[in-house]
């Protein structure tokens, strides 16, 4: 079970943010193309960073506390998942704050913004 420690932390992050999708209607998972186009390139960039760091021995992983599945270059599956879960959580958080406050994020057309708040024009 100790091998699942890192995954357990990631699961906690997912549990802590996926409820936003349901209860605050963040609609992030339903906008899958946008989600993947945002998350995958950044994940790839940070996986490169991670590969460099692992090979330069900036950091290492306790082999007893990770799954043991390692990709070429030495990056554990756990780390790859980290770069998918954390960005997802960040986007869910941003969209959750927006769902509650309707503050301007920057992807709204100008005419939908009044005093920094998106007017309730959800009927696009």
């Amino acid at each position, binding site marked *: 079970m100790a091998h699942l420690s890192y995954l357990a932390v990631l699961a906690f992050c997912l549990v802590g943010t996926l409820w936003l999708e349901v209860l*605050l209607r963040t609609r992030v998972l339903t906008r899958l193309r946008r989600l993947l186009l945002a998350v995958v390139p950044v994940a790839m960039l940070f996986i490169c960073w991670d590969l460099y760091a692992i090979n330069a021995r900036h950091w290492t992983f306790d082999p007893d506390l990770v799954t043991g599945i390692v990709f070429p270059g030495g990056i554990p599956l756990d780390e790859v998942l980290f770069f998918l879960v954390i960005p997802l959580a*960040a986007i869910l958080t941003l969209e*959750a704050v*927006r*769902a509650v406050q309707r503050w301007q994020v920057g992807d709204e057309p100008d005419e939908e913004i009044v005093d920094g708040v998106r007017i309730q024009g959800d009927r696009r």
Partner: protein
Amino acid sequence: MTYTQLAVVGVVVAVLADLVLFRTGLLRRRVFWVSYAIVVVFQLLTNGVLTGFGIVRYEGAAILGSTTPADGPPPFIGDGRLAFAPVEDLLFGFALVVLTLVLWVFLGRRGVQRTPYSGPPRRWLAGAARSEPATGDPSSTPGGEGHG
């Protein structure tokens, strides 16, 4: 390069991406900083677990602090650590989060699944949340959920 140096570069790249490259201007927006504050709290918590339990261990030569001890946790605060994690992790996390959100917003602005927008919160959660229909509609019910 050390982790410290790379982490600083990461922050610079993220800031440039937001302000110059993609021009999303997220760092100027209240919604970003409120979201980031929430993310940081969870980062300190989860990263604290990852580093405090030695799941991830750091080499002193690469960070401001010392090498993660072989026996026992690193310092909670001090010696280049905050909540057990190297302070560089805060910069790393900032870069990761900002770059992701910049891309997300940029894509939306380009029309990639910009809509439907998020919200409003479901009725029983609404409480003090601003989920009412547009103002100026006196016949609307409070905490309106009708946008489906």
